[in-house]
């Protein structure tokens, strides 16, 4: 492996890829079907977040196995890994970390490119929809598997007319590691 390769690029190179079209269109069709089934936009936001959570708790294993990242010593490092390695490896884009609060427990992940929203336009009737809410769930689920309870939500969304995609990532607490092992097994 070339020594100059950035960790995100190395992680991206380590996994199989497919054309993003199928992914983007499938996600869009799921959102559309949920909107038909639930009618209430708030319910759809919740479902998308729940789906993301379920994906996150499984995807983290794959990520840790293939990305070569080591244990993060502090939350700042964790945010960096998500932005530079996680997003790159899975979605092929990188995020920018910014707007840290004073005690380093809260930051923003800003996406300039977002493969989820290619071909997407929100109609008037979906104004409260967080179209990409699945991403919040994925991050929350993945971090929970490495002992961090977080709150993740969208604060800016270009589909809603903002100038960027910005997620707010807030660290709530560390879950003490409890091993399910028993000595006699």
């Amino acid at each position, binding site marked *: 492996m070339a020594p100059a390769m950035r960790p995100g690029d190395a992680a991206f190179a380590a996994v199989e890829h497919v*054309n993003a079209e199928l992914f983007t269109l*499938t996600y869009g069709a799921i959102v559309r079907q949920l909107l038909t089934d639930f009618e209430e936009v708030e319910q759809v936001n919740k479902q998308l977040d729940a789906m993301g959570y379920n994906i996150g708790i499984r995807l983290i294993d794959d990520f840790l196995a293939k990305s070569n990242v080591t244990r993060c010593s502090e939350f700042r490092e964790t945010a960096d890994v998500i932005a530079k390695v996680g997003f790159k490896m899975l979605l092929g884009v990188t995020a920018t970390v910014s707007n840290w609060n004073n005690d380093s427990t809260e930051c923003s992940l800003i996406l300039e490119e977002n493969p989820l929203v290619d071909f997407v336009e929100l109609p008037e009737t979906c104004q409260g929809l967080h179209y990409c809410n699945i991403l919040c769930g994925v991050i929350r689920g993945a971090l929970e598997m490495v002992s961090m309870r977080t709150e993740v939500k969208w604060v800016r969304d270009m589909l809603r007319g903002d100038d960027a995609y910005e997620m707010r990532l807030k660290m709530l607490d560390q879950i003490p590691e409890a091993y399910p092992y028993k000595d006699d097994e």
Partner: protein
Amino acid sequence: MAGGREVAESCVDAVIAEMVATYCKRLHPSKPELAARRVEAIGYQVGMQLAERYTKDRPRFADHLEVIKFICKDFWAEVFKKQIDNLKTNHRGVFVLQDNRFRWLTRLSIDSPANPSDSSPTSSAKVAQAAGPYLYYPCGLIRGALTNLGVPCAVSAEVSTLPACSFIVRIKA
């Protein structure tokens, strides 16, 4: 735009698996037909859109067979990076598309039977039951693509030995 954009294959797998779990286990656990219809509808929608995109630079198809062949070769290659392995027809509107290694079934595991050489009906029924929910989406995908290309049809799937799978297309007269 999306032209050359790529995402990790595991993203696609994860989203599809979670969609199946959401509809079949979480939202409609006691109504399998309803869950199946919803997931198939999602596939249908995507099949329609993909067919449109994959055919935008090619001439019109002459007949139904040509469309089916397009699905077996180009469409399958775009979506699954391989072609359909075997195509059969009864020449009366029924086509069987067989994929010997269907991507979306390669990671499916089933409680292994007590006796590995056991090929009794119970074990193949078990396979069919476990694989079933994962086939609604590709059935919808094929039906959506064919419908968009002027071949109205019904699509079902059969699986006996994982990860091989056959899709049965019945063209509507």
